[in-house]
């Protein structure tokens, strides 16, 4: 059981991690963002609700670690035209909660609101995020990130930045 001071410092460390991830995403620092992931990572953006089975039904993104790497590689070619020119992005990350701990893993929840300005138009994205962060060599890494867009049951415009 964590003491009061411990839980505060854990929350601060988690918050610093999420803010850093948000900055790397907003600023298209693809490689630095990729390095946040563990080798067994899952990056999941479901469609059609909060609790579909991604092994049976379509998700907007359901990447294992090698597919995360492929996604980043495509972005880095400079010929992924949907991100050339890149979207201008700023996101607010809030409502950060530590939901539980198991060994080195920490379950975290947050909300995010993202303002995207692209050639098409300005678009607002809103999501609930669930993470499993892991302590690796004294630093936090992402083993799992699920991004549940509020409007994921509707027809969505192209989502080609890192969400």
């Amino acid at each position: 059981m964590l003491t009061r001071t411990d839980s505060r410092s854990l929350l601060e460390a988690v918050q610093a991690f999420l803010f850093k991830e948000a900055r790397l995403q907003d600023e298209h620092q693809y490689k630095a963002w990729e390095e946040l992931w563990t080798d067994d990572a899952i990056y999941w953006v479901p469609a059609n609700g909060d609790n579909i089975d991604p092994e049976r039904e379509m998700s907007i993104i359901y990447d294992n670690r090698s597919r995360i790497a492929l996604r980043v590689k495509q972005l880095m070619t400079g010929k992924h035209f949907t991100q050339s020119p890149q979207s201008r992005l700023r996101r607010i990350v809030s409502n950060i909660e530590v939901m539980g701990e198991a060994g080195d893993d920490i379950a975290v929840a947050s909300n995010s609101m993202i303002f995207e300005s692209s050639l098409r138009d300005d678009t607002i994205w809103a999501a609930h995020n669930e993470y499993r962060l892991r302590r690796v060599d004294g630093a936090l890494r992402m083993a799992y990130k699920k991004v549940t867009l509020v409007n994921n049951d509707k027809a969505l415009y192209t989502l080609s930045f890192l969400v």
Partner: protein
Amino acid sequence: MNMLARPPSWGDLIRPDRVHGSLYSDPAVFEAELQKIWYRTWVYVGHESEVSKPNDYVVKSIGPQSIIMTRDGDGAVHLLLNRCSHRGNHVCSFEKGNARSFTCPFHSWTFANDGRLMNYAFPDGYDGQERSDLALARVPRVDSYRGFVFASFASDGPSLKQHLGGAAETIDRLVRTSPEGEVEVTAGFLKHRVKANWKFVLENETDGYHPAFVHQSIFNVAESGIGGLYGSKSTAVTRDYGGGHTEIDLRPEFRKRDQPMSWFGTTAEKLPDYVARMEASYGKEAAREIMIDGSPHVMIFPNLFIAEIQMFVIQPLAVDDTVQHVTALQFKGAPDLNRRLRQQTMGSVGPAGFLLADDSEMYERSHRGVHALKPEWIYLGRGMHREGRDDLGFTVGHATDEVPSRGIWRHYRSLMEAP
């Protein structure tokens, strides 16, 4: 706005090698298309496997109109317009489910899942009113081909079979990829919206000229064998079946490779269960041929696109607002293949797909582009000098030629000119 003086002469706007930019951008053209194409010709609506059990329903669409596809208690499939016969409310606001009846929440009118009005609330207010006159509206003609349910708002006209014509064979080819000869649509749909005219989407589906450029970013990093299929040296062909149906026939390339499952970027060794089931169903030799030829790449006019491993349904909402509904095809009796089909589909299509995110960018840039009024025309003359005929008499061209676009527009013109 790229507006024209009304009325247009379609022949002035659609020529053999070019079409006028206003056809993509003029709201009056879009309104005319709804009447002449979407609310008249055969349109794909849904698949029988989406309502597999009695009383299942799923909400589909024809253009901007909401359509409830139901299976009644006796197993018959119905297409009902989602509009209460009382005051026009949607009678169904859930995407899918199982229900014997739909009760309109406004005044509690209740309709059976075959459209009959069963009850209205406080019936003494309707002295002698015949209920059968107040059923939900039905799409006048409904027919299916190998499980694919199509509908036409025209009460007479060509049959579905006549409409599909030579392109029906591509659906035959598709279902043969299943050891049980059936496709299932069970993996749920991604819904990808674009701010572009639906015809940019339609034409792109069988445009074999763009992949080498639009998709170079993923071809370069994914070690995909797809790029070569669409190169200048490709032996694949584009085909115009008439009726607006078009295909990129990749079989010549796959037959050169002569490797079962190469069409799917894998080998027979990696899918032993599937291969065994195919051989048991079709015999060793025929199974091998099917697994070399692969699943088709065909655009059934105006809205069903089968792209080897996935299926797209194009829904036009406004002149500059289009949704592509996309799902992984699932082949009955092929669980090991189906799992890979789902994974590959999720990677390539939908709003974050490696392929479709770039396609959608092109639709939207083209749509904005044609608002510039010169040079007025979209030039579609690629490969006109080298068009040929296949054994069945259909027009064919090189994999990168604009045979499909020309075929689409020829049929489009005939529909728009029809009285």
